[in-house]
């Protein structure tokens, strides 16, 4: 029994370490091993395959954040964790659409406690959506400029050339203005939500 436990944990640990680094092989392996289970869960409880994909991918994001957090304690298998998270996410969506939820689905059998992880995820998900909206409403050239610098890690010289600024300093000033605008848009929504 002991050795079985250890082998399970060694391979799971490797997968999680890979996931934390968004290593494609690890993500794919976790996806392959667990997707069918979650799809069956959703489809058997009045969802479509499209819903299943959504829910599973959201659960993957929850697991990804958990793996990345500095101090990760997993006291169950990845499969059990994803199953528990997916079930809660789907339950929530069913309730939001005031759909009938069978009592059989609501029981907590085979699941582990994920409340805190989900509260945490809700907050991060909200911020993600706010950031998405803020960047979306930024307009050009700000959106491309910030994306190039912060997300695609281009340097100022390249950016100046691509965007037609006379030199890197001009590009910097423009980038600064754009960043301040983005911050302002984001925090207007963020603070509204906080209060």
């Amino acid at each position: 029994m002991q050795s079985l436990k250890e082998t399970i944990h060694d391979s799971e640990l490797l997968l999680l370490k890979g996931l934390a680094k968004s290593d494609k092989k690890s993500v794919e392996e976790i996806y392959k091993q667990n997707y069918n289970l979650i799809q069956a869960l959703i489809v058997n409880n009045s969802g479509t395959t499209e819903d299943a994909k959504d829910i599973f991918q959201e659960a993957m994001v929850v697991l990804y954040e958990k793996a990345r957090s500095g101090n990760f304690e997993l006291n169950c298998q990845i499969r059990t964790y994803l199953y528990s998270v997916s079930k809660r996410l789907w339950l929530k969506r069913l309730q939001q659409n005031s759909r009938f939820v069978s009592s059989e689905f609501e029981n907590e059998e085979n699941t582990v406690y994920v409340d805190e992880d989900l509260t945490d995820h809700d907050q991060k998900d909200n911020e993600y959506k706010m950031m998405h909206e803020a960047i979306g409403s930024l307009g050009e050239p700000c959106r491309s400029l910030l994306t190039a610098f912060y997300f695609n890690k281009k340097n100022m010289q390249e950016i100046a050339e691509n965007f037609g600024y006379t030199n890197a300093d001009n590009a910097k000033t423009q980038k600064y203005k754009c960043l301040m605008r983005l911050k302002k848009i984001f925090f207007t929504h963020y603070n509204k939500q906080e209060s």
Partner: protein
Amino acid sequence: MQEHDNTFLIEAVERYIMGEMNPDERLHFENLRKSDSEIDQMVVGHTLFMQKMNRYNEWQKFHKSLNEIHTNLSEQGKIDSIRLKGKAKVVYIYNRFKKTAAIAASIAGITTLLITSLFLGFSPRAPQSQVIKLSNDVKYLANKTHQQDKEINNLKMQGTENQPAVEIPYTKGGTGFMIDGKGYLVTNYHVVEKSKNIAVQNSTGHEYFAKIIYTDPSLDIAILKIDDPEFKQLPTIPYSFFKGHSDLATSVFTLGFPKEKEDIVYGQGFLSSRTGYNGDTLSCQLQMSANRGSSGSPILNQSGEVIAILNGRLKDAEGVAYGIESKNIFKALNELKKQNDGDSALNNLKLNSKTSLTGLSRTQQLKKIENYIFMVKVN
């Protein structure tokens, strides 16, 4: 000119956060932060924003790669997505996996994964001398309540002659909160330092005598026990105690009794750094307004876990406060048990590990917590 300065400053802040500065530059910049609290706040605020932007970028990439994987796996027939036909098959799959899931749940062990934090770790530095302990002069307040309670107390005294004297001129005060319904409280050491008598008062104005049973000056923690026949044991504590490190930007709230205020006061903010003043790893930095007298207040996260004890603030920077992380309460309690080996009442003392506040609205949470927060009065 102003704009040029700001551009330059933001660039410096970003290079500092990303660890791109050389040691000399870094030292210079850290000195600048120490001497200018405005710059310090800007670093904290911008770090927070960069962290959110980074997460946005990472999630977006992760979503993209999930979608690619999904398409690939279903094309290769390794997941059932596209080939799925009819409900019968789905039920079959579900039943098959239901068993696996049950087995999976039964093989539960604990795996700890320590992944080097991907976030930008830095320790904001503030000279220790600038941190004011939030103790509070409540003399006038204590006297006021005492006059109100005098008559009641006198009546009480007639029955129990061996009680300590009632008129205690209190000089200093802070906040404390229950760690066990039997009357054990935790507060800051600096609140009860050099005290002879201690009284604690709950949010409805009831006052009880308490005694110190443990202090640790280095952690700035003291454990008190209510020692008063009037005190009735409270039901299980609604909040729990969080042992780990909280993430940056965790939303937090607090309840306490700041200076010159007899009523309990609510405050909210967020965790702005994982380390406290001078990079102290036992404490953390918070973005919230703190007043004298709030010392010893609990800092709770949204699910109702106590993550820290409020113990200080920065003198010249409004809104910067410090807290001692909750794991130190565990430490203090273990020490206390060691010192009183064999005391069964103490041995049974256990910090609540499951919060009953998750999912409640903030107002409901506060209603439940309020009874467990006390004003600490000393002389």
